[in-house]
């Protein structure tokens, strides 16, 4: 690829250079001078799908000197490496994996660690509650069957005491997540679902202990503990979905996280992760490489594809002194960029400000289950209280009154709210996960289901965000094949586009030998008939076209130069997707930062009637606000940095996995792959999930209507309570599982 440039002179004083080194010295990766990994490294491996791959990955890594162990995790698509002696650079490991055919990257940071310990904590509680529920149920069943037979009261009391022995520590341990959350809610003077749950469980347990002492039959240990068990399963599913999404998102960012070539003051170069760069460092950006850092160009002129920042598809001409942004693609000769801190006046700072404002402006969305709980919790408490008072007023003692009230609390305990919604969400998220769509926000699907207007960005969202040859039919197969043979040895995006076009035509180009690449100019090869060249207009000796950066020229030996024009093409299924959305009644708009002509063409091809061009981030937000004011709930689909504020401001947001880091982090949903149909799929699943959550509410309401009168009247024996609760929990979960394989249409 690119040659290493010899720096002409170190910019700035030696003191400035030392400053850069010192600030970077705090980073352990940097301190080890070229050896990136300490003795533990976790790599993300993108295309590890099966057991065979897992083994190949491990073996490839173990062949590396100094690697003591490598353990792949297929579910997480990660591999953890420990080394035995000295240090192993992660670069070497990634190289080794690339040799074995795997794309790997170091994991940027591990946000999942805290989530994983929370996962485990909940799972442990689920296990304990499950054990206790099973054993208490065993004892309870014998008591219930004994009641109609010849069971001795003393044996019954013994069984109750045994149940208490199991139930008390279980409630104290497994109930903690609910108690904690209930206390928090009460402190904030709110009611959430956990308040009636905690109250029900604690009252039922306390009352049962009292009744056990008295030798009565109204003992609810089984109900209290199995309630905890079911609710914990719901809580665990919810947590699992969150941590899985967080892990997948971290993987995506890791795979995108770029490496940068840093030029030291002594002229030596070193590959460092882009995020460990400090202001003042000089970075070499090769042709076709993404710029890893925000900075100013010191050397080199050419073109930079800034579509991720501005939405403009054609490369922008750059020269020394110009500001460039992380994530943009160098389309010209190698550049030397000096990393700068984010300046308050730059586009980036502006986007940062807009993001903060947008996030504050977006009212906190209240999840479906919480909204239901707001009405449900007070109703339940009132009902319990009314039962208690009613029994007292009709002349019964406080004991039967309290027992009836507790039975009401147990029967009405919001299993459907706490279990059914997470179960539906998990089923929906894992269905989408299987199709490369990652739901990142916990309430993302719910908000997605409410959207009625969809705003698309153009470059990188509606289009592929990479150059494709246009008007390829103009050149003959022979010409294309010869140009592709030259292009095959280059990493330049245009060269790769030529090779791809040749492949698409079934030409199967083979890289020609002894091709020389002159960075920023083009490729040349000596043949018997003379020189053939592929590159810029100047390189191929074409007059008057020098300013056009989106064209590649090919001059065969002794022949006339031919032009290849490049354009960012629409995603293959864009038109179809827009048509489907329109049919489903969505209002679709295109809002882009690109030139009006380019936007109009794209809108026309995709079939979008409403489009806005040359929109800066603030104007995009203004457009969303206008839609919001008109009563629309907007789904924003975008990828660029310029879309990030709009993604944050919209009711729901989707990004492709090629999006800028900030956008990907902001978006509720991220989809992988070339096909836009993922948007339709996400919407369809979100709507189905919402339908199913409502169905589940209806189901559990049905149970309540059936059993609450019994409880109020005092007929809810422990047996009836147990049956009502378990069967409603199982019914709603079974309903949710249907979502996994159901046929869905938008």
């Amino acid at each position: 690829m690119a040659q290493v440039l010899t720096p002409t002179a170190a910019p700035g004083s030696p003191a400035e250079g030392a400053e850069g080194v010192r600030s970077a010295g705090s980073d352990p990766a940097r301190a080890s001078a070229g050896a990136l990994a300490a003795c533990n490294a976790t790599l993300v491996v993108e295309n590890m799908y099966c057991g065979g791959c897992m083994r190949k990955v491990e073996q490839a890594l173990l062949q590396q000197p100094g690697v003591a162990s490598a353990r792949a995790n297929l579910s997480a698509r990660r591999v953890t490496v420990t080394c035995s002696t000295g240090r192993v650079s992660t670069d070497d490991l990634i190289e080794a994996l690339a040799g074995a055919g795997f794309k790997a990257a170091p994991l940027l940071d591990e946000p999942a660690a805290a989530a994983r310990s929370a996962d485990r904590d909940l799972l442990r509680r689920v296990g304990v509650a499950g054990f206790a529920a099973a054993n208490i149920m065993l004892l309870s069943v014998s008591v219930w069957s004994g009641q109609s037979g010849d069971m001795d009261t003393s044996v019954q009391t013994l069984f109750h005491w045994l149940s208490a022995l199991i139930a008390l520590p279980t409630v104290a341990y497994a109930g903690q997540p609910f108690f904690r959350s209930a206390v928090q809610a009460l402190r904030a003077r709110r009611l959430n679902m956990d308040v009636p749950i905690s109250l029900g469980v604690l009252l039922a347990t306390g009352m049962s202990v009292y009744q056990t002492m008295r030798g009565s039959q109204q003992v609810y240990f089984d109900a209290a503990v199995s309630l905890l068990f079911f609710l914990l399963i719901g809580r665990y599913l919810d947590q699992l979905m969150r941590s899985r999404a967080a892990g997948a998102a971290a993987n995506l960012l890791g795979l995108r996280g770029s490496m940068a070539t840093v030029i030291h003051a002594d002229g030596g170069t070193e590959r460092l992760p882009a995020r460990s760069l400090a202001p003042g460092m000089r970075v070499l950006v090769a042709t076709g490489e993404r710029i890893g850092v925000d900075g100013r160009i010191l050397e080199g002129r050419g073109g930079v594809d800034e579509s991720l920042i501005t939405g403009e598809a054609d490369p922008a001409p750059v020269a020394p002194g110009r500001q460039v942004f992380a994530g943009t693609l160098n389309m010209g000769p190698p550049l030397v960029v000096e990393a700068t801190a984010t300046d308050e006046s730059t586009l980036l700072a502006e986007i940062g400000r807009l993001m903060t404002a947008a996030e504050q402006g977006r009212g906190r969305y209240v999840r479906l289950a919480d909204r239901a709980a707001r009405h449900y919790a007070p109703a339940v408490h009132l009902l319990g209280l009314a039962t208690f008072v009613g029994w007292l007023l009709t002349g019964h003692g406080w004991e039967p009154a309290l027992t009836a009230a507790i039975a009401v609390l147990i029967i009405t305990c919001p299993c459907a709210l706490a279990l059914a919604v997470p179960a539906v969400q998990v089923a929906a998220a894992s269905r989408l996960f299987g199709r490369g769509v990652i739901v990142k926000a916990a309430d993302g699907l719910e908000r997605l289901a409410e959207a009625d207007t969809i705003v698309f960005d153009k470059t990188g969202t509606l289009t592929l965000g990479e150059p494709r040859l246009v008007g390829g039919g103009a050149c003959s197969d022979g010409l294309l094949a010869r140009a592709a043979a030259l292009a095959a040895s280059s990493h330049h995006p245009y060269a790769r586009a030529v090779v791809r076009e040749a492949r698409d035509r079934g030409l199967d180009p083979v890289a020609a030998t002894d091709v020389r690449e002159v960075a920023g100019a083009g490729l040349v090869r000596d043949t018997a008939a003379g020189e053939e060249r592929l590159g810029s207009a100047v390189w191929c000796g074409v007059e008057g076209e020098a300013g056009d950066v989106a064209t590649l020229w090919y001059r065969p030996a002794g022949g006339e130069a031919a032009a290849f024009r490049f354009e960012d093409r629409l995603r293959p299924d864009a038109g179809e997707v827009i048509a489907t959305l329109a049919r489903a009644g969505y209002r679709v708009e295109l809002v882009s930062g690109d030139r009006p002509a380019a936007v109009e063409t794209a809108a026309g091809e995709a079939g979008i009637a409403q489009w806005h061009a040359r929109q800066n981030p603030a104007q995009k937000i203004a457009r969303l606000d206008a839609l919001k004011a008109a009563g629309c709930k907007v789904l924003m689909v975008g990828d660029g940095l310029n879309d990030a504020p709009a993604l944050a401001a919209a009711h729901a947001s989707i990004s492709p996995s090629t999006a800028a880091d900030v956008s990907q982090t902001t978006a509720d949903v991220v989809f992988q792959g070339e096909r836009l149909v993922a948007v339709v799929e996400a919407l369809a699943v979100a709507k189905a999930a919402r339908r199913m959550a409502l169905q589940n509410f209806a189901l559990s309401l049905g149970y309540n209507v059936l059993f609450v009168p019994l409880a109020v009247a005092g007929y809810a024996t422990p047996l009836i309570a147990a049956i009502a609760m378990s069967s409603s929990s199982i019914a709603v979960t079974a309903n949710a599982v249907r979502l996994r394989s159901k046929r869905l249409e938008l």
Partner: protein
Amino acid sequence: MTALAWLIPAALALGGLGLAAFLWALKTNQFEDLDGAAWRALQDEETRAPEQPGRR
């Protein structure tokens, strides 16, 4: 009825054994990679590091 005196503790102990096994499995990362574990069960040999000098 005397049967209960040992049946109940036996039942609880067996259940407790299951719980202990579950907690042990959780603690030793047995649930970390369920997809991978399914494949590993089918692999004939362990992937092993090449002989490190000084190990034998």
